[in-house]
């Protein structure tokens, strides 16, 4: 018998490798899929934008359930609303091809470039994983120690899940809003060098917004790559530079208009979202304000879990401020780590300068406002603290936005870098 389970070998393989065992319980029975998908969407906070992905995932699950006719109907629905969804075309091709001859994997197209097929298989896997994963509920990534009142939203990208999460600042507590499929660098993560086509991991902020027409003006036809728009972020940040990382032009951006989405690993290091999704996050972006934390694997915690670290760090920042006001330069300098640097001056040079400056003053007032604090992904002993500093003294005053990198050494938070944000 040649019941080779035509299209399903593919999805079975995918499900086996990519999904949690619980997925097998997601039996569809004979219910029309749209209602299943609708229920899934209705129960989650992910919103209507997830519909194509949910439908696509349902199609794959229908294939594993041998409901091929339903699968074909569903995939046609996906394509009706998203005619440029390449993965959906591939699966449609498989569903049709399986009627002509047995096929054994996703992308049974003959003579197709293997790398293209592999990319789309990766996307299928990534989207299935995304579809199957539990939404965070009240949990938050542990990096979000403190958002300031101005920061309405925070973005956290989990490169291991090809997902960008959006959190809303709800009276100081981050609250999950939505998540989106993203494309990251062709060569993965931990960007080091210009041109390595990797996505950096770290704490970043949106530095600019480039709308469609601006992109065209600046980059001409090439800017098609960025789709609906782009949000450059500040890679390399102070910490990257300190570690000698270089490169430039890491953006959040859309995708070319002739495609619905790109494979999970396809960019030169940028984080790309579907144009639809980019438009969905655009209202949440505040240039110069919105944090973008990029990490590989998120550590989820209940918001209260951050309280201790937050309080300790807050107290450290306030102690630093007070000691600066006290003009006791010795005490003040104790807040700076031995390997502190400003990027231009090492600790000794900088300390000597501070001593000289402070000695010439009869009083110092420092106000610190709008503090945000983020733990650094991959380094729980490093925190990025940003605030508005209002400095006045007997001979000079200034206001600035300052960013400090605090490092915990033996239970003590100390500053390893500071500079203007």
């Amino acid at each position: 018998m040649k019941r080779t389970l035509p299209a399903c070998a593919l999805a079975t393989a995918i499900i086996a490798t990519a999904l949690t065992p619980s997925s097998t319980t997601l039996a569809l029975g004979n219910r029309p899929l749209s209602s299943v998908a609708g229920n899934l969407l209705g129960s989650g906070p992910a919103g209507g934008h997830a519909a194509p992905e949910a439908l696509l995932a349902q199609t794959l699950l229908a294939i594993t359930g041998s409901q091929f006719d339903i699968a074909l109907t569903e995939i046609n629905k996906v394509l009706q609303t998203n005619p440029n969804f390449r993965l959906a075309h591939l699966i449609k091709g498989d569903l049709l091809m399986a009627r002509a001859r047995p096929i054994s994997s996703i992308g049974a197209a003959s003579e197709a470039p293997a790398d293209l097929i592999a990319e789309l298989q990766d996307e299928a896997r990534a989207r299935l994983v995304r579809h199957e994963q539990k939404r965070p509920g009240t949990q938050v990534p542990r990096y979000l120690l403190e958002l300031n009142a101005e920061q309405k939203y925070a973005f956290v990208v989990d490169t291991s899940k090809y997902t960008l999460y959006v959190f809303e600042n709800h009276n100081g507590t981050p609250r999950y809003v939505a998540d989106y499929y993203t494309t990251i660098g062709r060569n993965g993560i931990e960007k080091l060098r210009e041109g390595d086509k990797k996505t950096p991991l770290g704490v970043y902020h949106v530095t600019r917004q480039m709308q469609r027409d601006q992109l065209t003006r600046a980059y001409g036809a090439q800017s098609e790559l960025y789709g609906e728009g782009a949000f450059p972020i500040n890679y390399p940040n102070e910490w990257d530079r300190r570690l000698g990382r270089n490169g430039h032009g890491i953006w959040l951006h859309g995708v070319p208009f002739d495609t619905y989405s790109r494979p999970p690993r396809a960019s030169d290091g940028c984080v790309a979202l579907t144009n639809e999704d980019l438009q969905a996050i655009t209202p949440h972006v505040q240039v110069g304000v919105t944090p973008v934390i990029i990490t590989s694997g998120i550590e989820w915690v209940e918001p209260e879990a951050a309280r201790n670290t937050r309080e300790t760090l807050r107290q450290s920042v306030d102690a630093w401020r007070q000691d600066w006001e006290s003009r006791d330069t010795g005490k003040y300098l104790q807040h700076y780590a031995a390997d502190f640097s400003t990027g231009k001056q090492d600790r000794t040079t900088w300390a000597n300068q501070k001593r000289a400056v402070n000695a010439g003053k009869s009083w110092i007032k420092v106000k610190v406002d709008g503090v945000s604090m983020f733990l650094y992904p991959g380094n729980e002993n490093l925190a990025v603290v940003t605030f508005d500093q209002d400095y006045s003294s007997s001979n000079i005053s200034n206001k600035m936005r300052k960013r400090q990198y605090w490092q915990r050494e033996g239970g003590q938070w100390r500053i390893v870098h500071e500079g203007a944000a």
Partner: protein
Amino acid sequence: MTFMHAAARLAVIVVCVGLATPAMSQSDDLQEAQQLLKQGQVDRAMERVDAYLKTKPKDARGRFLRGILLTEQNKPNEAIRVFTDLTRDYPELPEPYNNLAVLHASQGDYDKARSALEMAIRTHPSYATAHENLGDIYAKMASQAYDKALRLDKSNQAAQTKLNLIKDLFTTSRPPVVAVAKTDTTPKAAAPATKTIAHAPPPPSSAATPKPVVAAKPSPVAVAAKEPVKAAPVKTEPVKATAPEPVKTAPPANNADAVLKAVEGWAADWSNNDVEAYLARYAKDFKTPDGEPRKDWEKERRALVSKPRKIEVRIESAKVAFGDADRATVTFRQHYQSNTFKANARKTLVMIRSGDKWLIQQETVGG
């Protein structure tokens, strides 16, 4: 599962019982037209058909031939009209649907082609040509989807399916059709056996006997398109339909071609993991290699042959020796290759004739 139904290339072995052919009543005009068509004299054939239709304007056979000739004359729209009218006047005939599908497909209208073929199959569920063609249509639609998925160069997909145009009416679907080799109630999804053995030339047919199904002459485009669309090894040759072949009801006694064809078919069934078709190629009195019961042997073969993996069995330098009219010994070199194993061996098959089929009575390796 409806999917299986649709996807199934039903491996049917068609038993052709003596055909009381209505073709005998064919008028001279029509017969001559058919001869002329065979000789490629399309315009002259058309004159004859037109003359014939003047006397019998409703005649299905004449109109069908007219549709073929219009197709040959590269007038697809007129041909479509003729076949559409035929499906309306004779909805029970599958051939006009099939040819309508071929024409729709040639115009890139795969959805229409598909519906027409589904109608053909609905009227005759075991209609192999329609199944073949439907498979090709699905493959074509799939490749369109793939092209969109992969954004392949359009020049790569100027592909046309090569579908089988039925060239004669009333010969292909009339004989009683017996589907064999079913072990359970599930319809089999299997590549049709004869599809894979297009190497052999079509059996000789006398001028008086209408030929059942003739593979459409591949148009230049279709030839060019052969490579990109077809990857499966079974598709490397122009396709011939799994159709009953009335001409073979009384084959020449020592028809080496027929024997070789059976051997090729056996190799193809094996290559396709089509265990039922494969087993059906062994005679009832097949001598199992070690004298074990047939059941045990089948069980073992079933396990080996049906395993879904890539198998390719090729036959090289086959020689046929006839013991008598119903018995032949075939020796050949067998190239066997699976994804795990590769072997070449000399093999000898003792074949016996059973009706119009040649079946394996003994299989030995070496020698």
